[in-house]
């Protein structure tokens, strides 16, 4: 090799920016990332069960439609997400505010996927109410939107995982519309299994599937899921998320500190970090984001003002708007600070029935014997079919571990013009959090009233 060819290579580096930009290779969707340990592991399960009022009998489980996952999700950008944001905001009020003073967590994305599947197997006003709640004008538009959401969120590589899975559990005594099952397999990647409802083996098969999809982290909750013999169909949707922090928390800096729960003070281990951050402000709250490595999203913490309960913030207003804004960096009220962060380690889990929340969202007919319309699913049942089970479980765990991007952790203070203002961001009283994935999709939202889980 001559010096001359090296000079040509170097000179090429100075050709006009426009040409370089035009010639840029297409963006890759997947790359081999580095896996440096789990920091945040969250998962959710939603079960929707349809019940036939005249029970039947039967035996084991076998698949009747098998979903084929794409080798890699075709990462799609979401278009207008305003209708989705309305659903997510309403869902937070419907599902998070029922147990004031307790820890509560749910997955907006998971419930969205489960309800989208429910819309496929219903018709008439039953379907219309679901479409309205989800902000879709038609079942075709919903299928398209759900597909876009699935593909925007799905990720499974060495660096991070956001894994959505769905399945349909059918009574062997009922003949189902194969076309509907095929739509669920094709558009929702939902495999269908058939067997004897209420039998130990069928329940175990469902529980095993739930555990498999959620990495065993919701074992206790999955153990509570049982389908009774009256059920003719159950929909199961899961979401599993795991990613390391972009900037890990130093274990040496973790220390016990007082957390003021509504029931009194407790001691919890707090993670500590210091650096420049944009802080976001709104009516009754201060917020900031903690990013995951490798573009896997972020976790947002909303600290209510003194004297304001997290549940009050969910009643409406700017906090809800901020929680579900796809791009939080467009929020007007933000300012960079040198922030001293103190965040309690927590492991919060919830399991609850969705029925009351669904009714608050206007989805009522599927629970009503006289009004429920499940004709796309089956017409081979004598008697009414209603939804008798809608169960949701979610768990979120955070700790210090994560990506050691050491080159970046030292760059903030001292390198260039740190902001003059300093502030403490100490989550030592009940707070809200939101885990967002690609495109700002809200994967998990929760309230931590007691990080020790008592």
């Amino acid at each position, binding site marked *: 090799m001559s010096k001359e060819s090296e000079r040509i290579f170097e000179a090429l580096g100075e050709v006009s920016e426009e040409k370089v930009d035009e010639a840029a*290779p297409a963006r890759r969707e997947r790359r081999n990332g580095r896996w440096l340990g789990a920091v945040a592991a969250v998962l959710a399960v939603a079960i929707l069960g349809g019940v036939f009022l005249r029970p039947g009998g039967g035996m084991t489980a076998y698949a009747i439609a098998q979903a084929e996952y794409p080798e890699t999700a075709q990462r799609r950008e979401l278009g207008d997400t305003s209708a989705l944001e309305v659903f997510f905001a309403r869902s937070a009020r419907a599902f998070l505010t029922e147990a004031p003073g307790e820890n509560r967590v749910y997955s907006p994305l998971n419930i969205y996927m489960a309800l989208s599947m429910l819309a496929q197997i219903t018709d008439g006003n039953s379907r219309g109410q679901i479409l309205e709640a989800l902000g879709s004008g038609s079942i075709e538009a919903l299928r398209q939107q759900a597909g876009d959401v699935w593909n925007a969120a799905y990720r499974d590589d060495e660096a991070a995982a956001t894994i959505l899975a769905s399945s349909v559990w059918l009574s062997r005594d009922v003949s189902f519309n194969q076309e509907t099952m095929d739509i669920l397999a094709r558009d929702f990647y939902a495999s269908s299994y058939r067997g004897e409802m209420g039998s130990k083996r069928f329940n175990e098969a469902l529980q095993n599937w739930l555990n498999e999809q959620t990495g065993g982290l919701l074992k206790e909750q999955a153990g509570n899921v049982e389908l009774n013999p009256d059920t003719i169909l159950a929909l199961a949707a899961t979401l599993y998320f795991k990613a390391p922090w972009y900037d890990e928390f130093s274990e040496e800096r973790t220390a016990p500190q007082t957390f003021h729960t509504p029931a009194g003070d407790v001691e919890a281990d707090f993670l500590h970090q210091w650096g420049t951050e944009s802080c976001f402000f709104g009516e009754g709250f201060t917020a900031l984001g903690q990013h995951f490595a490798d573009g896997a999203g972020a976790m947002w913490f909303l600290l209510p003002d003194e004297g304001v309960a997290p549940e009050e913030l969910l009643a409406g207003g700017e906090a809800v708007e901020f929680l579900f804004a796809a791009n939080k960096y467009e929020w007007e009220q933000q300012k*960079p600070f040198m922030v001293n962060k103190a965040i309690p380690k927590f492991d919060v889990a919830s399991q609850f029935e969705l029925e009351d929340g669904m009714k608050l969202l206007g989805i009522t007919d599927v629970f009503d014997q006289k009004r429920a319309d499940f004709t796309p699913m089956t017409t081979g049942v004598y008697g009414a079919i209603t939804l008798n089970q809608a169960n949701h479980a979610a768990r979120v765990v955070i700790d210090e571990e994560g990506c050691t*991007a050491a080159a970046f952790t030292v760059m903030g203070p001292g390198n260039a013009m740190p902001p003059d203002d300093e502030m403490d961001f100490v989550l030592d009283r009940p707070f809200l959090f939101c885990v967002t994935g690609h495109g700002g999709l809200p994967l998990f939202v929760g309230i931590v009233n007691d990080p020790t889980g008592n």
Partner: protein
Amino acid sequence: MEDVHIIGLYWARDEGAIPASDEKYGGLCRALSRNILGSPEDAEECVNDTWHRAWNAIPPQRPQSLRAYFAALARNLSLDRWRERRAEKRGGGLEVLLSELEDCVPAADNVERAVETGELARAIDRWLDGLTPADRTAFLRRYWYGQRVDEVARQAGCVPNTMTKRLGRLREGLRRALEQEGISV
């Protein structure tokens, strides 16, 4: 995230700028750096250095194209690192590219004057202006981004053999253009 928001984070001195940059352009910069260095570990360090440089340069800079800006930083840093490695006789992925670029070096008997790197860059830029968009893209993907020939061919919709021939013709064209301008490197 839109580029304008990422640049906004740098200006606000928000460390969220780094993961946001990495999410959008980390893949491009890593691939580019790996093409030059041939080592994922070295490439990772170069990409980290890229964000570090950007952090120190923005503000006051406000890049027009963030993609080209980050790619240029990553390319320069990778070239510097390749030179360090060469001094340590550890080599890297750039050798193949440089051996191909030998074809572009003007013949000595046509030389009238030696030029600075900037002037050489402008001459190459003028030559690129005269190419079809497809040829310009193929040449830059191979010799600016360091992509493998089969990757360049796949994106151009042709077989690698055809692309190899096309790149050879382009290198020869650049050599002739430099000779016509009487440029020595």
